[in-house]
């Protein structure tokens, strides 16, 4: 251990604001990136399932699918 006590660890030898700001922002961004990737995947899968279910109910063929996909998957540039 480079520190004598927990208090000293948090104080970072007087450099606490700098060290914790840098680490906090980094950790926050990494976590946000993971959460976003998970939410994105779930949303896309749910949209896809909803669409497939609706098409099964309506009994639409391949031809009409292209049109529907335009509405459902229309949000292309949101990344």
């Amino acid at each position, binding site marked *: 251990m480079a520190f004598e006590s927990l208090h000293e660890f948090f104080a970072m030898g*007087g450099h606490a604001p700098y060290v914790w700001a840098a680490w906090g922002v980094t950790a926050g961004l*990494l976590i946000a990136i993971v959460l976003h990737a998970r939410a994105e995947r779930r949303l*896309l899968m749910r949209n896809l*399932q909803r669409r497939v279910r609706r098409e099964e109910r309506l009994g639409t063929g391949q031809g009409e699918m292209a049109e529907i996909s335009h509405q459902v998957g229309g949000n292309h540039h949101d990344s």
Partner: protein
Amino acid sequence: MWAFINKLRSPKWFYAIGARLQPFFWLAAVVLILVGTVWGLAFAPADYQQGNSFRIIYVHVPAAFLAQSIFVSMAVCGLVFMVWKIKVVDMAAAMMAPLGAAMTFVSLFSGAVWGVPTWGTWWMWDARLTSMLILLFLYLGVIALRGAFSSRDSASRAASVLAMVGVINIPIIKYSVDWWYTLHQPATFTITGRAAMPMEMWAPLLIMVMGFYSFFIAVTLMRTRSEILRRESNKRWVRDLATEER
């Protein structure tokens, strides 16, 4: 090599192989980043000149490495896309841009915060800092360009070209500390020379760098697979996926 490029033509193959590789990279990312964080923050010795503010290096350097590597990856993807018209490669490139921008921001922010106690300023128009800021703008440019076209193919080609041209900035970033020796210190890691730090300091840094690279690969695999769901949603096999996962 050719077999690999041919396989990449199939989003279905990428989707399946990505699912198998992903868990290993997530595991590696989590373990390496956690170990590197505890080691770097609590166990590595304080620097004899900078004290504890030097611990910022453990997020600053990995983020800066990734920021540059992701841009190079994006440029390579752009080239492969332009030559062989492989869609999956373009999807991966599209997913890399926001991550690269985030990493560039992390390296700039952590550098600024580190600069205050070390250099007495958070910003200076030093060559390294300026070229990193340009990198951030290049990333934002690539992202904006993708959004600016109504045709997907035009957007992909424009983004590929900008990535391929913008990659010139990478050697400038790398050699900026040698060409214009102003404020930023030279490279911490060199392939040839001895390490500029004792082992207890660079071992956690190496672990963090590997963790960040694993994170990049894991996120890119995951998001490219999502992008396949988005772009290929008319394909039979994608529709079958939706029924399987129900």
